């Protein structure tokens, strides 16, 4: 009876918050929707802000459009012009020295408007150092330039299962003079590629064989990313990244296999399926120095199926990236595929749901996410410690709720690392939070946990936490991929 009463009180409490004052994403990040003219099919695969201040958008239909006023408010008087057409599923754009580089299915191509009529008329093959068979799944996603001027290309497997042609399932770097630098094997079905604040490159891979769930992975040169399908091409690399690694054992666990296969780089962050998303895609990093809000240097990852942008805060433990993902913003017009962060603090989100359904119901979309200047109450970062986690927050926490272990609930699980498609969550545990200590400045909490599980996702819910002005967290959930336990 007492329990029932408590529950009733709790319900009253929750519902009183829900009425009127529940924080909403749009209070902090506005989603500016571009009206798209009828003659434009904008299945946006790649985005680049040009030196001219215009926005270039490449599409799955092979067009490249230029938007003249990408920052217009409201974006009603905006013109879309076609810069190029007839290319093959362009999933990457980058500008350099007057050339617009694009990664299309079969090559990295650069193009230029020589006669200055607003349309490209010279197209040069920069590199076609990989092969295609005619299978639609053989996508190629291209990055922008790294500090050495390379474009990084991640190549989906044939049918997303096997590697029927050279370098399917690989990451290649294409040097400024068009040379192919084999960089990583083990890729399955990428959805996007992008660098973090210090220039390390990441890509997203999707749930399927050897991928228990969608994840963000670090393309450490020379590493093996987990799917052995493409490993047959090691012999073509001329030893560029060493000998072919040992094949992983199916039905094992990722962190069991990393001990046997030194080249195997575990995913830096899983996006638990389908709690966070079902189809991880484009990547952007907040390098605006605060213009996009409090998440400086963090990564943002699109999810095509959920039409969302997720947030990822990574740290390096024992030389490997790992960290937590958080929900960030939902409601993109179509399936969120490409992301671009611009210096002024805008994040452009390109969408498509052709062939793969999405919550956003439009066939294609272009949205711009803008920070309203109001700081949401969020977990800022989550750091693994030997015996728990340290959480930092964007605002001061209410020490009564934050110091109460009952304000949190923690569970852990991992995935079967296997040749079969995907994996359920397995090996679940329910660790105890023995202590929650609030820092004197109220901006962080140290959780002591009995005990952390190496190799598991740690799913933390913080429903009971309040800020000093009694607000709940905008997103009271975090998913930390604990591959390595700090010393």
């Amino acid at each position, binding site marked *: 009876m007492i329990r029932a009463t408590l529950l009733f009180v709790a319900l009253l409490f929750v519902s009183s918050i829900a009425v009127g004052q529940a924080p909403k994403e749009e209070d902090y990040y506005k989603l500016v929707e571009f009206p798209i003219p009828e003659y434009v099919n904008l299945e946006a695969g790649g985005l680049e802000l040009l030196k001219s201040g215009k926005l270039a958008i490449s599409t799955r239909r092979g067009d490249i459009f230029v938007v003249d006023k990408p920052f217009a408010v409201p974006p009603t008087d905006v013109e879309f012009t076609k810069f190029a*057409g*007839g290319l*093959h599923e362009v999933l990457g754009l980058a500008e350099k020295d007057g050339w617009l580089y694009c990664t299309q299915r079969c090559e990295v191509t650069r193009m230029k408007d020589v006669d200055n009529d607003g349309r490209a008329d010279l197209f040069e*093959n920069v590199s076609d150092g990989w092969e295609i068979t005619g299978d639609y799944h053989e996508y190629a996603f291209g990055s922008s330039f790294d500090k050495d001027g390379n474009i990084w290309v991640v190549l989906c497997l044939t049918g997303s299962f096997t590697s029927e042609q050279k370098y399917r399932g690989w990451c290649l770097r294409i040097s400024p003079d068009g040379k192919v630098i084999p960089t990583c094997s083990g890729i399955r079905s990428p959805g996007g590629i992008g660098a973090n604040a210090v220039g390390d490159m990441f890509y997203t891979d999707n749930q399927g064989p050897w991928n228990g769930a969608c994840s963000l992975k670090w393309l450490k040169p020379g590493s093996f990313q987990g799917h052995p399908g493409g490993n047959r091409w090691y012999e073509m690399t001329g030893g560029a990244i060493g000998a072919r690694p040992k094949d992983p054992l199916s039905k094992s666990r990722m962190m069991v296999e990393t001990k046997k296969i030194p080249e195997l780089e575990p995913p830096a962050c899983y996006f638990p399926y389908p709690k966070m998303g079902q189809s991880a895609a484009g990547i952007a990093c907040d390098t605006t120095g605060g213009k996009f809000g409090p998440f400086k240097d963090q990564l943002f990852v699109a999810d095509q199926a*959920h039409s969302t942008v997720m947030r990822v805060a990574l740290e390096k433990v024992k030389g490997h990236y790992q960290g937590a993902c958080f929900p960030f913003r939902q409601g993109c017009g179509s399936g969120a595929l490409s992301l671009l962060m611009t210096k002024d603090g805008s994040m452009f989100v390109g969408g498509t749901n052709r*062939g793969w*359904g999405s*919550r956003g*119901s439009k066939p294609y979309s272009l949205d711009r996410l803008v920070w309203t200047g109001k700081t949401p109450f969020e977990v800022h970062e989550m750091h693994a410690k030997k015996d728990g986690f340290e959480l930092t927050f964007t605002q001061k926490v209410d020490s009564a709720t934050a110091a109460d272990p009952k304000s949190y609930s923690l569970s852990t699980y991992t995935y079967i690392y296997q040749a079969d498609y995907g994996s359920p969550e397995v090996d679940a545990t329910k660790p105890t939070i023995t202590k929650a200590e609030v820092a004197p400045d109220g901006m962080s909490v140290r959780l002591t946990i009995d005990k952390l599980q190496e190799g598991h996702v740690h799913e933390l819910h913080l429903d009971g936490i309040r800020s000093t002005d009694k607000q709940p967290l905008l997103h009271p959930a975090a998913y930390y991929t604990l591959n390595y336990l700090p010393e």
Partner: protein
Amino acid sequence: MPAKFLLACLVLVIAGPATLQAADAHPRVIGFERFHSGEKGDAVVGGQLLLGELNCTSCHAADKSLDSYIQKKQAPVLDSVGSRVRSNYLLKFLADPQVTKPGTTMPNVLAGLPEAERKEKAEAIVHFLATTGTIAESAALRQSVNRGDNLYHHIGCLACHDPRKEDSPKDPLPTSIPIGTPSRKFTVPGLTQFLADPLAVRPGGRMPHLNLEPQDARDIASFLLKDLDISSGLQFALYEGSWDKLPDFSKLTPKEVGEAGGFDVGVTKKTDNFALRFDGHINIPKGGNYLFLIGSDDGSRLFIDGKLVIDNDGVHPFQQKRKQMQITAGLHAVAVEYFEAGGQETLQVEYQAEGQPQQKLETLIAAPPSKKPDKPEEGAFVVSNDLAAKGKEYFTTLGCASCHNLKKDGQQLVSKLTAPAIAQLKGNGGCLAESPAKTPFYALNAKQKQSITAAIAGINGPPRKPQVGRLASEELISQNLVRFNCVACHTRGELGGVEEARNPHFKSDMPEMGDEGRLPPPLAGVGAKLRPEWMQTVFNEGAKDRPYMFTRMPKFGTANVGSLVTALDEVDKGSLKPIPRLDVVDENDKKFKAAGRRLVGGQAFGCIKCHTFADKKSTGIQALSLTTMTKRLRPEWFHHYMQNPLAFRPGTRMPNVFPDGQTTLPKILDGSVDKQDRSMWAYLSDGDKAILPVGLVTGAIELIAYDEAIMYRNFIEGAGPRAIGVGYPEKLNLAFDANNLRLAMIWQGAFIDAARHWEGRGAGFQPPLGDNVIKLTDGVSFAALENDKAPWPGATAKEQGYRFGGYSLGEKRSPTFTYSLGDIKITDYPAPYGDADVYVFRRTLSLASEKPVPNFYFRAAAAGKIEELGGGSYKIDGQWTMKIGSNQKPLVRENSGKQELLVPVVFEGKGARITQEFEW
């Protein structure tokens, strides 16, 4: 299986075959092996299972109250056993069932008799059984064997049987029903008849009905009996000579004769100047109106029963002719004649029965009856009437008739044997004795005996089991799922599921769907999910609703599994809350349904991106048809499932339609989740009659060049995966192959339809949309040859050192392609040339090289026939004209069976130039 028992087996194997039989031959009941043979199973439940599966209650009458505990597996109906099973096999089988067919549940009823008497009685019974029909023989078809192999290994046979591949494990799984060598028992027609309707012979439903088409049944029978004679049923004869129409084959002597797998020119490696005649029989399953089609390059004719049906004679490119005709069921002689002069060679012979898809005619080929009447080493079996009369007597006195139904001359034979009722049994001795004197011998193992003893004790007490009466529903469900081996494919909660060793055999053609696409659905909560009338339909008719899954749900018969319908309803239904009442609406309101249609469509929830709709394919993966949903599912289940699919189906890829209980489409039906859900249901309730949702079927997306050239880089049929299609305003089009750096195709009129690549995921190659497509020479265009006799290199362009440079767009945005071979830079500018009415393609090739290149050639064409017309013009294959402009004289040469037009490339200074005009 406990390790101790395995060890015992091992010892027995070493000890020799005599003892092995006794140990290994225990009756194989899958459910018992899987759930009761170890330490864990409940002995009483296991024993009850055996009492049913071993048919104990056919002799030992059971009280009505035991019905739900002991469901008897009826023995095979023997009405026409003589037409299905070889008598020589029955002789051996009856003499010692367990030795002849290890694992059989058939007891040895003669076990207690002295050997001479046993032999006499068995023989008499077999003579009697042989009077029930005459065995038919026919050879297994070679083509059928392969198809049957595929069916056997994919449609679900492996749920209960072992794989039969070369590399399959030799040791059968303990939970498999062994098949052994079925050719000892069956002929092709006999096994075909059984597989086509197993329930007719084995009404108990343990071997369910797989809804095999007659041809499928024959294919699987042919595969299982492939150690018998195999014939292709089709002979070919090859003739060599040069003709311009079909020759009179009766006056020719064949160069080669043999068996053909089908009407296929592949029987010979010759590509020019030959003729073929095929002879065989087709079996028309059902008489009626048939369409026959024969297509060939060059001429062909089709004869049925000696009469000319279609004449497609003469030298021509691929050309198809057809003829509709009435044809009776049964065997018909068929002959196809074909000849090839030069160029391409193709032959296609097809048919279409009314309402059926078009198929290759070879699928109807029937094998001639085998010449050998029975197993050759055994000779024919001749029935003795005297013995048969005695056998009939034994059939009723020895107890055969207790288990087997056999109707002879309209009269059901009745057993004269009596045995004590179950209630009188003590649970030892009799059939359970070590070597029974008067009772049947089952070769039970110790565990089986213990279980049966426990079950009888459970029934007969003391203390009598309190719950005798009706079995509780959940127990009834689980016992039936085990009894009928539903658990080989399905789970229900913790119970059952595909065994690890069988798991790899479950496959789908949609690997991206993961386990959900290949493993039959879990049955937890199925009574809340499916409408009872649908379950009834599934049990009565079987089902194949998941197009991607290779296994099918077989038909078990409601007589056998009907009790599951009520039990599942009773147990599961309560788990669902009712649907909230809607204050609106007439669910049949047109606007309400229209909203549902909109929601299902491509620009709302996009259900059609994954789900098929009636016979229309989805644009993504091909999940279950939307139009069968309301027929199969309960509306309550649909309502709750849409809001949390994972709660019902862990691991499903079905997304949550209403995340967090909210709709993403607030503008439709006031943004009410309940209304949106109901409107989709109302719309889908129209089933196949529902108007197609938006975005499912899209028309062509024709790309048109108006006043400038347009480009289309994609998978283009005939130009490879890295094709660059160009459409010109002059209504000429080309496809450049950027992999092999060649002009691959030219055509006139419409450019291309982009719908294949721009709707859905974009799978496959798209051919040109226009007319008069000319496919140009495969392989690279330039090469240095040692001399003008050297063969043209076959390696890919990259392997030969070519590199694609790109293209620039010039006047009216027509492209100039650039590529290089080593130091040689090549620009390739094809463009329409002419005036307002008549355009041809003119291609200008400009080469530049710092160094001279000796023996360098441009291959302008490779074709069956190249004729020089003068003035630099050449007729290609008698069909179109190519004109070469060069400072060198082109040469025509023979190379690997083709003619080639080579243009020597001689650099004047650092450059060379060739023009090529295509007129067609």
